[in-house]
């Protein structure tokens, strides 16, 4: 935060209390929406939008990003770029069904541990985590 005068600090505290109330209300909104049981794509979109608004409030006011030095903005832009790259990586797999088929049929293949095959996994990719390790070993 740039200015540290007493009046400014008192004003800042008032802003933070307002932000705090907004965050509480938005938390209730997020939970309330989850009880509506929207279809999955809409639910993900709404939940992520509300979470992003909350995160922005925290970053802008609590972390003083609304009035910060340029050095921090440059640093965060670079971080944001790499973060987006990380989020983009899985979407590359999503669009290439061949790849995702390869990855997810290769990993659960070895059934030595007594688990059923990957394709038959009925619940939440059951046993995939278990079998990933032996599969990785088999590749070396």
């Amino acid at each position, binding site marked *: 935060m740039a200015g540290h005068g007493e009046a400014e600090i008192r004003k800042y505290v008032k802003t933070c209390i307002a932000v705090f109330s907004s965050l509480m209300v938005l*938390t209730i909104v997020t939970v309330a929406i989850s009880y509506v049981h929207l279809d999955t794509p809409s639910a993900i979109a709404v939940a992520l939008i509300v979470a992003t608004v909350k*995160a922005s409030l*925290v970053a802008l006011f609590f972390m003083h990003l609304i009035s910060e030095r340029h050095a921090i903005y440059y640093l965060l832009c670079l971080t944001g770029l790499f973060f987006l790259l*990380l*989020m983009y990586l899985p979407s590359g797999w999503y669009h290439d069904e061949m790849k995702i088929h390869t990855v997810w049929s290769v990993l659960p293949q070895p059934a030595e541990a007594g688990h059923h095959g990957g394709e038959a996994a009925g619940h939440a990719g059951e046993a995939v*985590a278990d079998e990933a390790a032996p599969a990785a070993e088999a590749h070396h």
Partner: protein
Amino acid sequence: MEIAHITKPHPETGLVNSKLGVWLFLASEVMLFGALFSSYIIMRIGSTSWPHGYTILNVPLATVNTFALISSSVTIVLAWASLKLNDFGKFRLYMSATIALSFVFLVIKYFEYTAKFAHGLYPSTNTFLAIYFTMTGLHGLHVIGGIIVNAYLLGPGSKLWHRSPDQFANRVEGAGLYWHFVDLVWIFLFPVLYLL
């Protein structure tokens, strides 16, 4: 030897070095948690089915935890503001509240974990629980780290206030930035793991 640019901003960046250091650290933390969120997406789109978090996890408890973390973010801001207003007594009060709220979060998390274990639900049970325990576990470690730093600033570290008030206020601000980041990560973890 005196550390350079610890109370007076560096002419190039306009920032005290400690603050720049905390932000660089937080940038690396964004990548750490980013990698896990990326893994979550890969696991979810690669699975034949994925459970709704609320069918396995306890949403009311996690909501209380969200309130606790948001409240602790405000109390640490108030602790820093109290120092800026030269009120050391209030700083101690708000910092104690921050630590108390952090413990509320951890205790609730402990009950959540033990309830899962009691029902035979472990990280090895399925992919959803694997990523749930990994992400909330790493976040929990960050909460513990924050408690240690904040407790130091409340206890032995607070002696610095009498020698160098500006430097001490900057330390509290740095700890606050970290704590807000921990809150920020939870703001995404809560809907992603519990509500979707």
